[in-house]
């Protein structure tokens, strides 16, 4: 844990400045990283808020040349939105080092943001990221009578369970209509996937909830686990796999599931005239390399016209929530980042479809702040609408 596991990365940053994002990576046309892609650098201006700045400060911390509670060090560490664009432009793939930096700071007693501490405490005591009553996690599914065992299991995640139940219901609705088999659900046995702990430095906590969920899913007999949350999906695909080895079940995002059905032409979608744009969630897009599937689904709805934002796919700008860490720790900055994305979306459409409930929430908040008519849909909700 901590910086020891990323020593190679923090030691060999060459200060190339690729992560600063001030100039095009390709000067002669063609694919290029967009300018200004690092949200924290754009907002806070100074070098320490770049990937190389964080790598170097990590090195200094590791060497003992800066103290964990040095002024602004925690802010520097916790304002990275973990969007992963720096991994796209730098061979060192620095993002993992920023997780390790947070682990190191927590381990060494740094005063980490209260918001992050609260989220960790909520997960520790109530097994969800909101501190809500654990027993109400499955309230959205009360009337659905979903079994706890089955070959296909839906992992709702904290957001769908507590804040966006329409997304959970829409996902189950779609799965039940198309999967050809009953959908299982862990109910209140489902805990937070572990993402907040893994990304705010509390790795122990993250791993503890991972162990719980893994055991429960194994016991359910599920061979396929479907996620509607990009963050839960990424956590299972990468972090659970990293911890437990090859998973005994297939983890897929509902976008992948639906895209398959589109390819088989077995999805019945009604005509629906609308111009929409798609926001690539960082944890589904860059982190998990799922770009085409959501687009395929959107474009298969008769009457829907998909228009891309200027920065899309691997270069999509972040919604600002930063795995919930930035949202909890520096909400003003999270909103600032979301506002920029809304302004970008406004240039092409009045409707955003995305595939992550945290993106939905953050973008909605920003749209409201701008008094914008922008409508934001989670993908399952958008598809369910077209299936009615």
């Amino acid at each position: 844990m901590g910086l020891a596991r990323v020593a190679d990365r923090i030691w060999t940053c060459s200060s190339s400045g690729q992560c600063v994002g001030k100039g095009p990576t390709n000067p002669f046309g063609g694919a290029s990283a967009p300018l200004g892609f690092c949200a924290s650098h754009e907002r806070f201006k100074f070098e320490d808020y770049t990937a190389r700045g964080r790598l170097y400060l990590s090195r200094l911390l590791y060497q003992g040349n800066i103290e964990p509670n040095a002024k602004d060090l925690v802010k520097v560490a916790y304002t990275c939105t973990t969007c992963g664009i720096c991994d796209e432009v730098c061979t060192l793939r620095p993002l993992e080092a920023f997780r390790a930096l947070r682990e190191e700071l927590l381990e060494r007693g740094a005063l980490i943001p209260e918001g992050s501490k609260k989220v960790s405490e909520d997960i520790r005591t109530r097994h969800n990221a909101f501190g809500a009553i654990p027993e109400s996690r499955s309230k959205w599914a009360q009337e659905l009578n979903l079994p706890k065992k089955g070959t296909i299991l839906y992992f709702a995640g904290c957001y769908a369970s507590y804040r966006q139940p329409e997304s959970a219901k829409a996902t189950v609705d779609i799965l039940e209509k198309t999967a050809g088999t009953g959908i299982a659900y862990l109910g209140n046995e489902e805990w937070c996937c572990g993402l907040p702990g893994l990304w705010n430095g509390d790795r122990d906590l993250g791993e503890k909830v991972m162990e719980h969920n893994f055991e429960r899913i194994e016991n359910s007999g599920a061979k396929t686990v479907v996620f509607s949350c990009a963050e839960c999906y990424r956590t299972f695909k990468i972090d659970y796999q990293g911890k437990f080895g090859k998973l005994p079940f297939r983890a897929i995002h509902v976008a992948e599931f639906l895209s398959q059905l589109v390819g088989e032409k077995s999805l019945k979608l009604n005509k629906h005239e609308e111009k929409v744009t798609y926001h690539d969630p960082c944890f589904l897009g860059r982190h998990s390399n799922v770009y085409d599937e959501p687009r395929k689904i959107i474009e298969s709805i008769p009457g829907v016209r998909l228009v891309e934002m200027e920065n899309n796919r691997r270069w999509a700008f972040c919604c600002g929530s930063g795995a919930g860490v930035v949202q909890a720790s520096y909400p003003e900055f999270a909103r600032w980042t979301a506002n920029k994305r809304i302004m970008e979306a406004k240039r092409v459409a009045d409707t955003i479809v995305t595939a992550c409930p945290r993106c939905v929430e953050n973008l909605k908040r920003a749209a409201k702040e701008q008094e914008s008519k922008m409508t934001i849909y989670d993908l399952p909700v958008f598809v369910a609408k077209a299936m009615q």
Partner: protein
Amino acid sequence: MILSDLESIVGEDYATNAETTRKSYTLTQSPNLFFFPMKVPDYVVYPQTVDQLASVMRVATRTRTAVLVRGSGSSSMSGNVSLEGGILIDLKHMDKILEIDEERMVVVAEGGCPCNKILRECYNKGLLLPIGPEWQSAPQIGANIATNATGHYINRTGRLGDMVVGLEVVLATGEIVTLGSGAYKWGAHYHRYTGIPDLIGLFINSGGTMGIMTKVALRLLNWPKMAHLTYGWPDKIRDVTKAHYELQRYAEIFSIELLNRNTALSLENIQLTPRIKIPDDIFFVMLLIQAGQTDEELEVRTKQAREICERNAGKDLGDAWERIAGPPRYWWYTMYCDTLYGGGLKPTKPGAIGLNSACTMIYCPTTMLPKVYEIGYKTYVTKYNFPQEHFLWYGWADRNAIGPYPMFFFNGTDENQIARFGEFWREVHLEWAKIGCVSYNVGIGHPKEMREWLGPAYEQMKKIREVFDPNNILNAGAV
């Protein structure tokens, strides 16, 4: 006091004395990090206009505070870290292209404008600023002029400094001066020489010691048709040198980049580009660009280049350029140097961390290349016992000379290795200097003897500098 002065000039969001910010500006690609005393700046400030910058300089002069102007911080030369503390000025926010005049074939940009941004906008108009696009996305035009950057395309056209036709500079006193034809009341930037001695030359390759370039005007070329060739040679540097020389003298080659095998293969290690199939018997690789304004001209010039390579025992490596570059093409430009510097070399022992690098740049007449290579190799490998596979070589043709850019690696966590590398670094530069090589790097990255051996020229430079900077605040300690 100084911080509040700075904040009142640029705004509170653009000036700071936060420890994390100040320390983050001590990261450099230069070997300064390991071998030379650096100081953490006391303040960091981001001016957004030339007037703000001038006001900052007036504060610095009044308070006799050292100032370092930093571009992207990606230079392997020594001018991007503070030697005396004080104020560090980051030019990132002065990054606009002000004008591209297609008729006059001139671009005017703010000093903090990334070179790649200029390259791209000029490319879109069919114009070329002949500087190396491989220097990633961050390097800024002002800093590139202050270090007289090199790279691709320079063999026929000259280095970046040769393309400058105008400057706006802020002196240490805060005075703003425009140079070149743009200085005339009714003039525009298009010509460098204006009936007075060439003051522009004082700022080129100045390493930030003479003044701060806030606006630059550069002449452009019409974008030529280009052909990319790759030729290889076994470990026979004399044949390589002869080909190199003839390409420069007779073929007016547009660009030559010369790599040794270690350099070419280091890209394989990161597995981001297709596997390079450099044959086992090839040790030196020459990446050539030939250019012409018409297809016919290009054909003739390319044929001539091929003939020169082949009569000097060069082997046509076909599409190896594309393999080294790798699709998409821009990986070459963006990943190459970054990879070499940091990630491209495998650690020598399992579990060992990656290595740190120090690269240097010297100049020599092309015909001296074998001797220069031999000194580099023998000193690094034979005398100081570093692994031969960590001796990376590349360099660019520059008209009648070659600019070797060798890169040497060491383990930056091993105190013994750091000390040994420091001794090597000093010795190899002195040995090169004794056979006539020059370093063009301003600053302390090279042994001070290399500057002192310039004799009266060095003393006169210091006197001129005193006129511009009587308090010796700009990049204090570098000269």
